[in-house]
């Protein structure tokens, strides 16, 4: 049996005496959306941060296409084709859209390695057009955009750079209904491209709209993984709260 794109084995993360995550084991394949659900403090964001290289797991293994990987730094996770869209919108607000798109990976040209602002701007425009994201100009500053536009920029950035896996931590938490729909459409398009997606969401409706499989966490421990088609919202809700 071929190895899945992402396999997480017995992931454990301690912060001092606090065990934030203990024994999470899950697979995600290309073209698949796996949802992570659970109450506040269940450890969802911790799992995402471990996979994004923000902090190293205390123990457990992360395998990409069957090979064990370690991320001492977020850069390493990105090199392995993993991108994250964070809950708190990891965007630099006073910088233009194109700078955020290329943050940490700016394009340069010439022997003096000058920033190639024209190329970054043009590439950003092309990307936003592709994803049908409407922003006046890639040179606009992030703080001049709406919440939905900002999230679209964060997702477009992930789409642009992700080779294998996109981690999404509450991508629609701060958005209105119409904006949420657009972001969900973006997620579907990303999935259809063959990228694996790990989605953290509080909205079970959204999870059932998007996810192929659902992983339930409670107090850092993995309760269950269910195929979305074979379970119900009531059942998942019961598992989240510990009634089941």
């Amino acid at each position, binding site marked *: 049996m071929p190895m899945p794109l992402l396999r997480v084995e017995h992931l454990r993360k301690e912060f001092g005496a606090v065990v934030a995550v203990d024994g999470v084991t899950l697979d995600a394949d290309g073209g698949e959306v796996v949802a992570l659900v659970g109450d506040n403090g269940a450890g969802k964001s911790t799992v995402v941060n471990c996979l994004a290289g923000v902090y190293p797991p205390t123990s457990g293994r992360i395998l990409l296409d069957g090979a064990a990987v370690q991320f001492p730094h977020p*850069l390493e996770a*990105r090199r392995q084709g993993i991108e994250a869209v964070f809950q708190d919108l*990891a965007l*630099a607000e006073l910088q233009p859209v194109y*700078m955020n798109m290329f943050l*940490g990976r*700016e394009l340069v040209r010439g022997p*003096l390695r000058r*920033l190639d602002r024209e190329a970054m701007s043009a590439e950003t425009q092309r990307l936003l057009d592709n994803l049908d994201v409407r922003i006046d100009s890639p*040179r606009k500053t992030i703080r001049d955009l709406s919440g939905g536009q900002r999230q679209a920029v964060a997702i477009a950035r992930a789409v642009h750079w992700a080779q294998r896996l996109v981690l999404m931590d509450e991508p629609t938490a701060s958005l209105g209904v119409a904006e949420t729909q657009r972001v969900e459409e973006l997620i579907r398009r990303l999935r259809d491209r063959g990228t694996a997606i790990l989605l953290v969401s509080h909205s079970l409706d959204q999870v059932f709209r998007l996810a192929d499989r659902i992983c339930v966490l409670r107090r850092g421990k993995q309760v269950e993984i269910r195929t979305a088609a074979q379970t119900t919202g009531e059942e998942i809700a019961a598992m989240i709260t510990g009634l089941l």
Partner: protein
Amino acid sequence: MVTRLREVEPRRFVVYAAFLLIFVFFAATLHDDGFLSHTNLLNIVRQTTPITVMAVAVVFVLSAGEIDLSLGAVVALSALVTADVMQSHSAVLAIAAGLGVGIGVGVVNGLFVTVLVLPSFLVTLASMGVITGLARSVTDLQAVAVENQRFVDVFGSGNVGPIPSLAFWALGAVALGHFVFRHRRFGAHVVAVGDNARAARAAGIRVDRVHLAVFILSGASAALAAILYTGRLQGASYTLGEQDLLTVIAAVVIGGTRLFGGEGSVIGALVGSLLMGMLTNGLILWGLTSSGQLIAQGALLLLAISLTLRGQRGR
């Protein structure tokens, strides 16, 4: 070009407008006192150079969301060390020692901020105290003279044709600073870190390295300013740089750099520093005593900062 203009915030224009306004005002009122004379204008450039050099570095520091209050103290210590070493050793060694002091202080400041995760305001406030004390004790409050004519020519009162050598140091610092700030990845990382350090870290930028780098840059700029003072005044004393911290930060902030990080302008800082120099010069020509100058400068600073900073705190 249009897009370029759009990128420039209207606030940036304040410094250019103020510069022109004050220039015209002094030119009109001080015409008979020689404000516009060749010598006087070159004097402004000469006196402003150390401020400009430090202002360039402070653009990086403030844009990264940090502050370096030890700047003026480093000027005094660096200048005294340079002058003292030159008494018995070569100028090259003396310059290296002076720069070493600045870079060393920058490294220490930077390590406290990054490794111990302390606010730079407190770290540099404390190091300012230590360095001021060191500067006073290193020669027991004695001034130290410099007699090396070559050193004085290069770093102080020399001229290349009609242009003072100091102007080249100022222009060099501004050109290099502007290029790195605006056109290199490092500059983009500095503003990104000052804008949103967490986002920068998540984007793979080595935030600690950026912080360390801006403090080293700041210390080195204070040391270079100290060497330029020592060259121009042909000696060093513990009072050098005493008033500079406020002047430098004012020049930088008036020049359009955001006090809270995320945005800056090296060219604006140059204009801001020339503006401050012109103010001092005009007030002297007006016949204000040094205490009168301080009062007028402080009041004008407050006015300028109120005009430019208003609304900067909230995004």
